[in-house]
């Protein structure tokens, strides 16, 4: 089903970076056969991020066992094989690309007993083995709330543990079929229980039909779950069959949300129309640990 779309305002405009360095990075990614969420989600920030040597690797295949209304990642069969060489191939590509900061995310794999947590953990360790000073951020699915799965990922030593709440409580069942608002909050809380010093991160999309009170309450819920870093960005419909954009939030409103979240006590907040959970991830990490 295709939804009608409201008119796109002038601020939803990116400059296309046509940097020669991008083609080199694209070539390494193509040769490796690895997937990025940048590509799978048709992210408009891709060229900008690649020109800074930043990419977010998509683990566990390119077919997801859930089908969130906002997402363009394809929904696939529930039992595709794991690529056991993927952790090493990602580490190899990270080395070739000379990355300092790596984000690892995945499709949701409800068909796997551990939800793919073991592969996250292996990949974090493989990347750290290339150069221990490389910072690794994971952005995980909810692993159906499994404490063992969450613990396995935390114990592999990521520098940032991210899990996106994505939208406000009121819109959860419509936008994230198969996911639960409270389960996502519990996951973030449990990460801190396993390792109190673990930096945690989450992200909210706006423009799906939430109001400022909804957002304020989700910001508070995330803070209560111990979340350290928050990103807030405009939902942009990737394909015609995805949920419609209900509203384009003006840049000054993002500034207010940022202030609201900083007042709530987040260590770092990035908010703006083109902000995505992995956008400027290294800068957000450095700001949160006080190195900038």
């Amino acid at each position, binding site marked *: 089903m295709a939804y009608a779309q409201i008119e796109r305002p002038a601020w939803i*405009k990116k*400059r296309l970076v046509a940097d020669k360095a991008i083609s080199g990075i694209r070539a390494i990614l193509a040769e490796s056969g690895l997937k990025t969420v940048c*590509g799978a989600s*048709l*992210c*408009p920030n891709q*060229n900008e991020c690649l020109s800074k040597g930043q990419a977010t690797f998509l683990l566990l295949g390119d077919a997801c066992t859930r089908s969130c209304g906002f997402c363009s990642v394809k929904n696939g069969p529930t039992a595709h094989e794991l690529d056991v060489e993927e952790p090493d191939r990602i580490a190899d590509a990270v080395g070739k690309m000379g990355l300092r900061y790596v984000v690892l995310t995945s499709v949701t794999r409800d068909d796997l007993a551990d939800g793919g947590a073991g592969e996250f953990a292996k990949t974090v360790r493989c990347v750290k083995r290339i150069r221990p000073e490389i910072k690794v951020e994971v952005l995980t699915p909810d692993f159906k709330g499994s404490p063992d799965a969450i613990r396995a990922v935390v114990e592999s030593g990521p520098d940032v543990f991210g899990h996106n709440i994505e939208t406000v409580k009121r819109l959860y069942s419509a936008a994230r079929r198969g996911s639960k608002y409270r389960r996502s909050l519990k996951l973030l809380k449990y990460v801190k229980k396993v390792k109190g010093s673990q930096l945690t991160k989450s992200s909210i999309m706006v423009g799906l039909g939430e109001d400022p009170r909804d957002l304020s309450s989700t910001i508070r819920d995330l803070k209560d779950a111990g979340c350290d870093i928050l990103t807030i960005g405009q939902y*942009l419909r990737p394909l015609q069959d995805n949920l419609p954009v209900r509203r384009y939030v003006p840049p000054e409103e993002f500034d207010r949300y940022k202030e609201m979240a900083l007042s709530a006590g987040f260590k770092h907040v990035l908010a703006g129309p083109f902000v995505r959970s992995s956008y400027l991830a290294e800068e957000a990490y450095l700001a949160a640990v006080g190195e900038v």
Partner: protein
Amino acid sequence: MTEVKLPPIAEGIDKASISYWHHAAGDSIKEGEDLVELVTDKATFNLPAPASGVLKDVAAAEGDEVKVGQVLAKIE
């Protein structure tokens, strides 16, 4: 002479529609200035001029769908 091609916008996106030319054939432009505005399902992009010079041979009109790698114009 420099060809203005549609660069890769994003993995998974192989085409865009031209919504607006900021300059017309015969205009003098500087490298880095916004040259043409392109629209995809997800966002709107401005393509900067890859070189300074006079815009020539504009090969795609507003409303046209263009493919990645396609020559849109020349700058001489």
